[in-house]
């Protein structure tokens, strides 16, 4: 885990997102920053501040990425002597998650970090927490109104699609009448639509490329295998595939292998360890993946701590933490995969 956190520095650049809680306007931090680059300790702060109790409520970790979210949050909190983490059991049931958050409100935690199973459905309880004077860091799935959170941090679903589309577009730009297909995630999630929208928008820049098929899977290995097997049967020839999620990508790659196909390039999404390894080995169709980093949970803890201690974010001029932070969906391919390897989730 310590490797994981150190890599974060590399991931998000020097400061903006991850540096967390250096007091804005704090004395010269030049030497400090150098120290951080080499040190596996969180880049967030020099010395302990006043004790902060952070309540963390997330959905059930039934998926590799969500499991990584939980472990990132926990290990980040353990790094700080001044942080106590109150973590609730994850639940995908809206009513249950509301109950858990209300329990945390009643416990009077200093700051709440909430990754709602459904952002819209949990907006009310976010408002309730804010009204009770507990600032909320809304992680990933966004509440309906900015009044329900003090700060939002999350990935860029639209950007994932956009960057995947541009990567594929650049690879195929010299090919006339190029065909691409899309293996989407769960269609009833807003984020799936955003990923598809970004992808479609990027492809508009490449008139020679046509999206010929799209099927939605369910973010699971089983669904990835089943849907991909069908897609391969349906499309006897295409040049590129974008798969929204590396977990279902394990199944998709299996289906590709079973069908004996290697006549196209594949771009994944999220940043699973198995995907990084496949990209590094470069023996199959998977050539790149666009990030949706679970390390955002660690950053959320940094932000929550800064909130609790009344600090800003190191590296920025502001006295307070920002109202929202959208992470960048970097494209990881063979050229930079080593840099990201340790952030991969299993």
């Amino acid at each position, binding site marked *: 885990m310590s490797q994981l956190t150190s890599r974060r520095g590399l991931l998000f650049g020097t400061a903006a997102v991850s540096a967390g809680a250096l007091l804005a306007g704090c004395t010269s931090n030049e030497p400090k920053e150098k120290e951080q680059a080499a040190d596996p300790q969180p880049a967030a702060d020099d010395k302990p501040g006043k004790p902060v109790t952070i309540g963390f409520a997330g959905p059930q970790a039934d998926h590799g990425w969500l499991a990584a979210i*939980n472990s990132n949050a926990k290990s980040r909190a353990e790094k700080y002597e001044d942080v106590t983490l109150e973590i609730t059991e994850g639940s995908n049931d809206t009513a249950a998650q509301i109950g858990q958050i209300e329990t945390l409100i009643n416990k009077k935690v200093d700051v709440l970090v909430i990754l709602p199973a459904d952002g819209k459905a949990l907006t009310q309880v976010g408002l309730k927490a804010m009204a009770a004077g507990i600032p909320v860091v809304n992680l990933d799935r966004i509440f309906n109104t900015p009044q329900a959170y003090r700060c939002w941090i999350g990935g860029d679903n639209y950007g994932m699609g956009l960057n995947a589309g541009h990567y594929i577009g650049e690879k195929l730009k010299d090919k006339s009448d190029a065909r691409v297909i899309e293996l989407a995630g769960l269609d009833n999630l807003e984020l799936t639509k955003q990923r598809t929208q970004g992808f479609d928008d990027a492809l508009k820049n490449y008139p020679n490329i046509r999206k010929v098929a799209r099927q939605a899977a369910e973010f*699971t290995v089983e669904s990835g295998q089943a849907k991909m097997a069908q897609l391969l049967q349906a499309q006897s020839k295409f040049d590129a595939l974008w798969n929204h999620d590396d977990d279902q990508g394990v199944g998709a790659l299996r289906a590709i292998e079973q069908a004996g196909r290697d006549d196209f390039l594949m771009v994944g999404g999220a940043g699973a360890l198995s995907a990084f390894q496949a990209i590094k080995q470069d023996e199959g169709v998977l050539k790149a993946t666009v990030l949706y980093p679970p390390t955002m949970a660690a950053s959320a803890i940094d932000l929550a701590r800064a909130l609790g201690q009344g600090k800003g974010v190191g590296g920025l001029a502001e006295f307070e933490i920002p109202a929202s932070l959208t992470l960048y969906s970097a494209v990881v391919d063979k050229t930079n995969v080593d840099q990201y390897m340790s952030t991969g989730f*299993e």
Partner: protein
Amino acid sequence: MTQPVSPPRDSADKAPSAARPPAWRGRVVRADVRTLSLLGVLAALILIGGITKPDEFLDTRNLQLVLTQASVIGVVTVGMTFVIVSGGIDLSVGAIVALASVWATTVATQEFGFSGILFTSVLVGLGCGLVNGLLIAYGGMVPFIATLAMLASARGLALQITDGRTQIVTVDGILDLGERDAYVLGIPPLVLVFAVVTVIGWLLLNRTTFGRRTVAVGGNAEAARLAGIDVRRQRLYLYLLSGLCCGIAAFLLIILSGSGQNTNGNLYELDAIAAAIIGGTLLSGGRGTIVGSVLGVLIFTTITNIFALNNLQSDVQQIAKGAIIVAAVLVQRRTASTT
């Protein structure tokens, strides 16, 4: 318990169930009509597939694909059919598949290679079936509740074992069985297992004392008890059988997907129940056929295949699935009321 009793008319005569209509011949004719109508639906689907996507749909590889994808849920459905015929229900099948698949793909199991994974899948399936059976047969619990509890706890345990991670299989012999050119007797291994399970299931239900007892218990449990059938032991065996099928299905899923994941077998319980119902199995018990259930599975898998080949989205697919269930049950009600 499984000594064959050959002519089925024998079984009808001896069966003590009051729910069985006296006219045996009439029932067989009706069953045939039902099977024929299912075959008709399947033929219509094949026609639709052939017309809309002739090159892709009528391809040998596509036929193999449909059958392979039907195999996992098909094996589960065979077990489910027995349980429903006996008047019970097993809501835990999907969760058992998940638990068996993740248990069988944990690192420790993979060190024991092929047989380690196979035996663990089957044993976990049997173990869960045993618990279901004991709770229902000897604990006096309603099957709905007992298997609902198993659904929750087996999924929970599967999640605990994996911690939400995908467990990738590294044992070669297993992956080879799912490869493009893996054939046993000219048939893809998964399809062969599905076929064998289907034949054994059919023999067990139609040609053995075990099958007769299953039908009798489903028709009228009290009458079956008075006729000397150990109803509780019979129920125990049935849930064991369902668990065994789940274990086998988990192994097939490991071959197919090359991994174990706690989300495996998602909604299998509903798919298996739907396939059995479409196949003519009465949800209240006492009647059902393996052939019908298997046709139900094939119909669903073929629909999925045709939709994917035509690049239609999953929402449309779900609506169609719902409509087919309703239509099939309505047709059944009609045929049932005319006798």
